[in-house]
């Protein structure tokens, strides 16, 4: 990786840590340990199911919230504090700034997810007393969640490259919700006719498809995840992220920062 991108990424990571973003881990730990003890008391046979569902859902939602609320400030905060001018006055290109910010935020989320994953497996061990082979599928679900974060990070950067933080948050969160229902959107497109069909199909492919990344319920039921799906989802996430980052670079390159 370009050294300048690396510096920007590591600074973004340090800044996120300084902003106490990782404090969410305390809330997560409390939630999960409380749930593990609580479901152990009330649930019969489904303790493991509840812990996996709750744990992975919390990992996903906490991460999405961090990605959106940290991501929207990445560009605007630098402009408000005028630190962006200092950065760009050095031999740093605008696209390097955007890509560096993306890697910084993504690495923050990866570290955060790693810590939460330890929590999920700890709670799982507490309720079921041992690990089984099918617990490895949880790792696939966590990997998909991380892929989802990459897409959201790139989208928040795209929006924050031209919009205010508040609007960026609204756009990003709306896309997250729409993307979670994207399969229904494609189903609707399939049932429509004429121009509606074309429009619905275009929108369905334009918005991110988050439903394919959500395998939480199936891994909780110990269903395996196809290797092909892992491969295709990885490629999809990489291409979609690259698309959104290219858009962000295009806009930011032309933005008047005076």
């Amino acid at each position: 990786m370009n050294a300048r991108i690396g510096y920007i990424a590591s600074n973004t990571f340090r800044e996120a840590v300084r902003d106490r973003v990782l404090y969410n881990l305390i809330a997560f730990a409390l939630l999960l340990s409380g749930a593990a003890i609580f479901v152990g008391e009330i649930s019969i046979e489904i303790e493991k199911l509840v812990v996996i569902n709750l744990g992975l859902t919390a990992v996903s939602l906490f991460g999405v919230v961090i990605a959106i609320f940290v991501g929207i400030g990445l560009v605007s905060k630098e402009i408000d504090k005028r630190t962006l001018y200092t950065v760009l006055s050095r031999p740093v290109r605008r696209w390097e700034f955007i890509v560096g910010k993306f890697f910084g935020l993504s690495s923050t989320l990866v570290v955060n997810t790693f810590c939460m994953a330890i929590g999920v497996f700890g709670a799982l061990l507490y309720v079921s007393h041992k690990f089984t082979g099918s617990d490895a599928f949880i790792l696939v679900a966590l990997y998909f969640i991380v892929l989802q974060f990459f897409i959201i990070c790139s989208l928040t950067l795209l929006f924050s490259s031209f919009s205010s933080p508040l609007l960026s948050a609204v756009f990003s969160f709306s896309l997250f919700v729409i993307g979670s229902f994207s399969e229904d959107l494609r189903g609707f497109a399939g049932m429509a006719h004429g121009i509606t069909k074309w429009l619905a199909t275009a929108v369905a492919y334009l918005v991110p498809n988050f439903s394919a990344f959500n395998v939480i319920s199936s891994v909780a039921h110990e269903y395996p995840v196809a290797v092909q799906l892992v491969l295709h989802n990885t490629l999809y996430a990489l291409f979609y992220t690259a698309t959104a980052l290219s858009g962000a670079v295009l806009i930011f390159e032309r933005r008047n920062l005076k």
Partner: protein
Amino acid sequence: MKARQRTTILASVCLIVCFAASVFMLRSVDRLRPQASLDDVLYISSPKILKRASLGYEGLLADVYWTRAVQYFGSRRGSNVELLAPLLEITTSLDPHLIPAYEYGGFFLAPPPPNGAGQPKRAIQLIEYGIRNNPNEWRLYYNLGFVYYMDLKDYAHASDAFERGSQVPNSHPFLKVLAAQMAQHGGEYQTARMLWTATYKTSRDKLVQQNAAEHLRDLKVDEDVSNLEGAVTRFGERTGRLPSSIRELARAEGLPGVPVDPKGEPYKMDENGRILVQHPDDFPLATKGLPAGFNAVGKHFASN
């Protein structure tokens, strides 16, 4: 070329190529998990939980489930459709006033495969739930009577349902006629034709209309075959033998030519005097005129 221009061109190319690749990958993902959104339904099958989880937006969630139910049945029609009932129950629990869901349930839950899920009791439960929540919708009483008559042959309950419907303000006048006809339970074909015609004319759902049209077409086959086999019996009583061909039968009955099925193909007669259609696959809902061993459910011969 300036560095900025170079970046713009590269970013534009990257955007276009990556977006095209992401669409391609998404299509591959869709092929890997074609029923994914429906499979997800299996994990949350409780309408009560879904209602709470919808945070007050149950109308929107009902629309999502309704779309899923239509998609599910549309894509799996003719095969196992066991999820249709829970999908419709969830939809109507989330929005008890979604009348098309009850109508759809009545027409596609009750009939046996390949045209439905073969669950008439569940269809009745669904429609009764709809009536409790929408007592002034005459169509629901009509749907209820329809299921009782067509799928359960329960004339008393069918008559009762049509009678209840006829008392609803602004109900269609034919409900009174149907109630009376059920009470007599005579003229099977005539009643069935009347019901399917009414369904065809009053439904606003295209799939329900298409279903009614198919039933009317195959009902015509049943009626024709019954009449022609009656003619064969009469011919035998008169002459002491079977007609040598359907042409001879038509001449003896004074018909202008060999009778044809709704697709325009002439009926044929086997050596035992049974009347058959030329292409049984064309009439999946017909109960008569099919060769021995023909499996209407799988639309093929049982021995295959």
